[in-house]
């Protein structure tokens, strides 16, 4: 979602407390059906594929494979993988989201889909299994207070030979004013961030809110995954997004969102990375 970001401030509070605040906001957004994910329920109910074509292509065949979806929100993408034949487990830190996910699984006739309420970083305390695939996507990384620990959690839950896959918004477009509908090449946000959280204040129909994020660079993501012992197979960058996740993107007619035409050339808006837990280390 585009957080109508009115200001940003560095915050040095205990990350656990900030995550609690975020969780309360996500619970509230979920109760109100206020996130973009809700707009996909109808399409999912009609039998449409809601996963991105490149995700399906890059993750590969999932039939009969166990798949753990980290930060699954209310589980619609998790259920989409279940429909493609995966044996799915979705986890999210919002109790409201997990409750809705379980309900949707029953409603859509996918009763084997399992949903667990847990923060990613403490998931090893809640779940004692390994998976063929660990998957996570779109708008997840900035909610993590510790990327190195996240990467270790990913590696922890993979079977030897298992695959990690992430599709995520690229950090590049966030350099510019992401809440402006007109693209301006002036730098608004630094690419590199301190370890402290950043506060995002905004407002929507439910009133004013503040959430906290930890923005990461592309290098942070690659290095954290590599340092957790996974072998990076590819890092792909795409000149389109599946949503107007920054306000200056324009709809391109094929269901994707791109840079406005007056900006010369195509820019990286989304990235995907696949990595394997090899058995040689």
């Amino acid at each position: 979602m585009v957080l109508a970001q009115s200001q940003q401030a560095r915050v040095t509070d205990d990350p656990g407390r900030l995550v609690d605040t975020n969780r309360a906001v996500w619970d509230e957004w979920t109760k109100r059906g206020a996130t973009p994910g809700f707009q996909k329920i109808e399409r999912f109910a009609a039998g449409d594929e809601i996963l991105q074509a490149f995700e399906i292509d890059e993750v590969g065949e999932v039939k009969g494979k166990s798949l753990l979806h980290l930060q699954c929100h209310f589980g619609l993408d998790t259920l989409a993988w279940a429909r493609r034949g995966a044996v799915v487990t979705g986890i999210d830190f919002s109790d409201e989201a997990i409750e809705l996910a379980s309900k949707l699984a029953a409603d859509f006739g996918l009763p084997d889909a399992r949903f667990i309420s847990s923060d990613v970083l403490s998931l090893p305390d809640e779940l004692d299994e390994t998976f063929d695939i660990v998957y996570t996507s779109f708008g997840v990384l900035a909610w993590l207070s510790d990327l190195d620990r996240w990467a270790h959690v990913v590696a922890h839950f993979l079977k030897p030979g298992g695959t990690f896959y992430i599709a995520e918004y690229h950090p590049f477009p966030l350099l510019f004013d992401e809440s402006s509908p007109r693209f301006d090449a002036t730098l608004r946000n630094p690419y590199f961030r301190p370890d402290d959280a950043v506060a995002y204040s905004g407002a929507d129909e439910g009133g004013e809110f503040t959430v906290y994020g930890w923005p990461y660079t592309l290098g942070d993501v690659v290095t954290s995954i590599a340092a957790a012992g996974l072998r990076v197979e590819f890092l792909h960058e795409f000149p389109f997004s599946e949503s107007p996740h920054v306000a200056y993107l324009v709809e391109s007619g094929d269901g994707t969102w791109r840079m406005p035409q007056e900006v010369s050339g195509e820019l990286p808006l989304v990235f995907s990375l696949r990595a394997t837990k090899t058995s040689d280390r």
Partner: protein
Amino acid sequence: MPSTDPPELREKFLLVNQARWDELVDVHAASDHYDLEGFRAGAIRVRDYEIEDVGDVTGKSLLHLMCHFGLDTLSWARLGATVTGADFSNKAIEKARSIAAEIGIDATFVCSDVDSLPDKLDGTFDIVYTSRGVINWLPDLKRWGEVIAHFLAPGGFFYITEAHPVAQIFDHTPELKIRFPYFYRDQPDALVVPGSYAQPDAQVKNLLEFGWSHGMGEIVTALAGAGLHIDFLREDPVGEWDRPFLEQTEDGKWRYPVDEGELPLWFSLKASKHA
């Protein structure tokens, strides 16, 4: 991404680039930027952070791809490595050999572009190294990754330190303006460049150069796809290249004005060939 431009056309682009780089050898050898006199007197031209990233090279074999006239190659030799440098400019290789002989370093220099180096050089190396202004001269990054993997001994590693692809998209103007492509395109960008980065007022006859854009994902994937294990990718807000929208740091490098934001200007990446 595979390249589909006809090979004979690509060959022409590379010949234009080669003519320019041949001419730049003498210009650069006489420039303050390369400070050949200081190098003859014993200078180490590779940077402290590179030495830290690469680690102790004593007794190790090192292949330097796109070495120009070899000052960085010979710096690694001064640090204890047994070095081989490769460059597509014959003039650059001649100059590298003469400098090596002059300062008494036993080094091997091979004239070859990266793509065909496996036909001209035997053996494998503990370290394959390349740096500062290499990526944009390569039409085919997939081949580049394969050549690097080919020359690495099992247990060896590749190290690159280079301008960040994001920094390369902006025009050379005081205001940030997006001009150059981020993603690879078959058709290279043609640039007319008077002088040289090392000697801006030099009278150079070969002004034309062709360059290919490659995004960060393409770089990582070229190496990973060739079978290497990525160890780290570090991005840096401070770079070595002057642009009108950057300001100089105390130690002579360049960064976006501190109060106005931060761009990724440089990156370093290490990848290993597992035994």
